[in-house]
């Protein structure tokens, strides 16, 4: 990665949107008045989102004025953290993980594709719709190789990629579509290819994990779930947390983007609630 410096091309004016202004002020209020520079990193993040994914020089000054701090201090922080872009980014900004797990799983090929399709790192594609950067671990190692693509719709992870699938995603994005996030090799989340092999209703009726453990470990192993036929959900050692009642409509549950991630654990008939995925009954039996 080259030295991170302010872009040569800068907009002639910069106007902070009302919503961003409001949000930054919310952060400023969290700190005592003489310590309001503590809100610097959230403020930089908000202002970067507001300015279209990067920080123009005028934005740095705007933050300096808002937080009553020297511009050089804002500049120091903005150049220190790689999450702040000082160069303009494309409408769709691709951050490709190049850390060891992704590299072992073929990130070099993705890199080749990106430089072929978009060009050099940190430069815009010809139509301005794409730009890319190799970054360090984004924490999705189990789904390596992966990229994060940020645009006005948000930040999305595209995982288990091959150059072909990534090219498809990029083509869709350039065409103005928003491809769904997630793995591209057919599996769900980071489950094994072919579906879950544990904590599955059918399977859990047949397996009692406790039986598999040596006696001495029965009392000490606490981090396991078992299926409770009475309440019809997997519980931790048979204990049900009353606060964690699932919403009856799995698609309305928060935090799972319309998909029911807990389907196999709590619903009466998990197969109906779960999204389609390939099932391999043989693997279930194998655990028996």
């Amino acid at each position: 990665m080259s030295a991170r410096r302010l872009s040569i091309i800068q907009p002639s004016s910069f106007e902070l949107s009302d919503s961003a202004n409001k949000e930054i002020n919310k952060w400023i209020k969290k700190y005592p008045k003489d310590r309001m520079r503590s809100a610097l990193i959230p403020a930089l993040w908000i202002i970067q989102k507001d300015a279209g994914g990067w920080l123009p020089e005028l934005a740095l000054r705007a933050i300096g004025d808002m937080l009553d701090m020297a511009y050089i201090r804002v500049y120091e922080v903005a150049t220190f953290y790689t999450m702040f872009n000082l160069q303009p980014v494309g409408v769709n900004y691709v951050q490709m993980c190049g850390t060891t797990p992704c590299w072992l799983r073929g990130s070099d090929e993705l890199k080749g594709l990106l430089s072929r399709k978009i060009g050099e790192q940190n430069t815009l594609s010809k139509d301005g719709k794409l730009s890319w950067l190799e970054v360090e671990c984004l924490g999705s190692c189990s789904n390596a190789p992966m990229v994060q693509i940020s645009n006005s719709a948000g930040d999305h992870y595209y995982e288990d990629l091959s150059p072909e699938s990534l090219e498809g995603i990029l083509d869709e994005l350039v065409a103005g579509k928003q491809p769904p996030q997630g793995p591209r090799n057919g599996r769900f989340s980071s489950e094994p290819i072919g579906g879950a092999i544990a904590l599955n209703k059918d399977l859990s009726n047949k397996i009692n994990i406790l039986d598999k453990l040596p006696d001495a470990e029965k009392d000490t192993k606490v981090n396991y779930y078992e299926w409770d036929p009475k309440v019809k959900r997997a519980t931790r050692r048979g204990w049900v947390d009353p606060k964690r009642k699932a919403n009856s409509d799995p698609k309305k549950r928060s935090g799972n983007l319309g998909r029911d991630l807990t389907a196999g654990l709590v619903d009466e008939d998990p197969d109906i609630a779960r999204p389609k995925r390939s099932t391999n009954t043989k693997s279930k039996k194998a655990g028996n």
Partner: protein
Amino acid sequence: MSNFRKINIDGTEYEVPGEYTLMQACEEAAGAEIPRFCYHERLSVAGNCRMCLVEWVGAPKPQASCALTVNDLRPNRDGTPANIRTNSDTVKKAREGVMEFLLINHPLDCPICDQGGECDLQDQAMAYGRDTARFHENKRAVDDKNMGPLVNTIMNRCIQCTRCVRFITEVAGVEEIGLASRGEDAEITTYLEQSLSSELSGNVIDLCPVGALTSKPYAFNARPWELESVESVDLMDAVGSNIRIDSRAGAVLRIMPVINDSINEEWITDKARFNWDGLSRQRLDSPYIRENGKLRVAKWDEALSLAAEKLSGDPSKIAAIVGDLCDAESMKALKDLMSSLDVKNIDCRQDGMTIGSDQRESYLFNSTINGIEDSDAILIIGSNPRLEASLVNTRIRKSWLAGKTTIALVGEFCDLTYDFEHLGTKPSDVLKLSKGKSGFSKIFKEAKRPSVIIGAGALNRKDTNKILSYINILASKSNLITDQWNGYNVLHNAASRVAGLDMKFLPEDGGLCTKKIIEYSKSGDIETLFLLGADELEMSNLNSTFVIYQGSHGDSGAHIADIILPGASYAEKNGIYVNLEGRVQIGMPAVNPKGQAKEDWSIIRALSGHLGKVLPYDNIDSLRSKLFQDHPSFSGIGYIAKPANPKNFDVLPQKVNKASDDVPFVNPICDFYMTNPILRSSNVMAECSSLTDSLDMTEAAE
């Protein structure tokens, strides 16, 4: 001092204060030498260079001795004090390792580097480094940054110690330098490479342990071992900073600070450091006489005879004014000459200041520069100490940073690098303060050691006495003046002023003060005016007067002069100077006077011969003996003559002038870089000055 801890350094047991860092303990108690780059005793501890590693026996890794205190050490298991080693194999290996890493990206520039010969990295690489490098890859390259006309940057050499960042932020009080990026890309820079605006920015050159920040005017001028050094006193303001003048072959090549913890600590202002190019420009190198409106070169005898002729007239029509850069000896000689001629119109206050005829405390910075750090409430009246006495301002800032003081200002609003309450701009606001019961009034009245700093800009007004009477009211209601403490501080901005006042270079009974002398010159009642380095006057009023100008630089005084007697600048003469707190100091000559110029006192001595009133001293020693005899306060070189009883001091002058003129205060210095003839002759200062003009000062002040 109860917290003493035992510590074993290199096999010997010592007892040191617990709050000492290991570095202090090793150096002060055990006398061991600890190399360092980032650590500086007047800056905060950064601990990022790792050069000061020592071994703590039992600890898995060597420890950075600058960042670990003795209190942090636990004793050994058997209860004996912790063992520190500064010369073991581990330490040697650690230092060699650190040095090797530092040198990975440091260019082998020493033959072309200005720091060569006085470089910490060079010295320490010799003492603590390995013999050869094992790093064969390319070194990193960093763009040089602009930091203004004073600081030259060669950023390849930077080792990221961040001393400059910490100095500018903590001492100078303007956050302008920062460390951008991280890791291999880390670079020292100013925001968008703007020039430094601090009046103390030159100090980063001294602080830089390598050659990354060097002096731009001095670039490629000389090697340190070629220079001859002489210790002297800075005259660019009244603080009296201790300086070292480095010269080679008769030319002053640079000026560096000398540590004096009572005055300038380790810093000097930019005008003290960079005025040296003014010492070789616009110099008066031979006597001149004006004939038919034009100056012509003259012989000394000729000029002195003409001057003597003009000075032997009616003493009531002769006057003498001394300027801001004069040494005590020349003022003493001039005073003795004038009293032998029976001239009473003499004044050393060319800015028209009206104080000085009372006891010594009435015109001194009584709390002393060190003492201002102990003051818990400071009221600044009609002054901008940042420009008038920058190093006093750093002391106030230091105290403010430590939370020891509260500051308020009555006068022009300005950026002082610390927070203060702006109480108003007029003298009556001081009266309001003395009547007030809340806010700063309360703080001031309850303070144990309050102090008032009154600027020169408040002491040359019609209503100066009124202002002093307000301060007197304030003093009566607070602890401003007690047996232990005198917080009444006059902030002079002229280096020669206190010496002049100490020897009472003032109009004697019935004599005229500066303002009147200028007025009478215009009307023709003063026929001959002797200016000893006085250039800050309304010269347009002196056209009809016969002006004898004695000084070093061709400035406004020389332009109007009818006779010019070339004198020596401060770098070329022996001189006694008294700083604003009354401390007497001696300056030594670094080079010879230019051309036919002479030391100032000797010119006056020669003139006295031409007048037939020979002054009773033939050399500077006998002149000094006479000075010490007549004015004993000069005799304690390096010290401040203490008053007998501070409680006896009354701020109010004996002669009370009731004039009231409640107009806002105006600060006397608006252009920091152009306050005297030497600075006005300097190209470097002119560049700084034009840079300041181009900044939007109103925006900067907000």
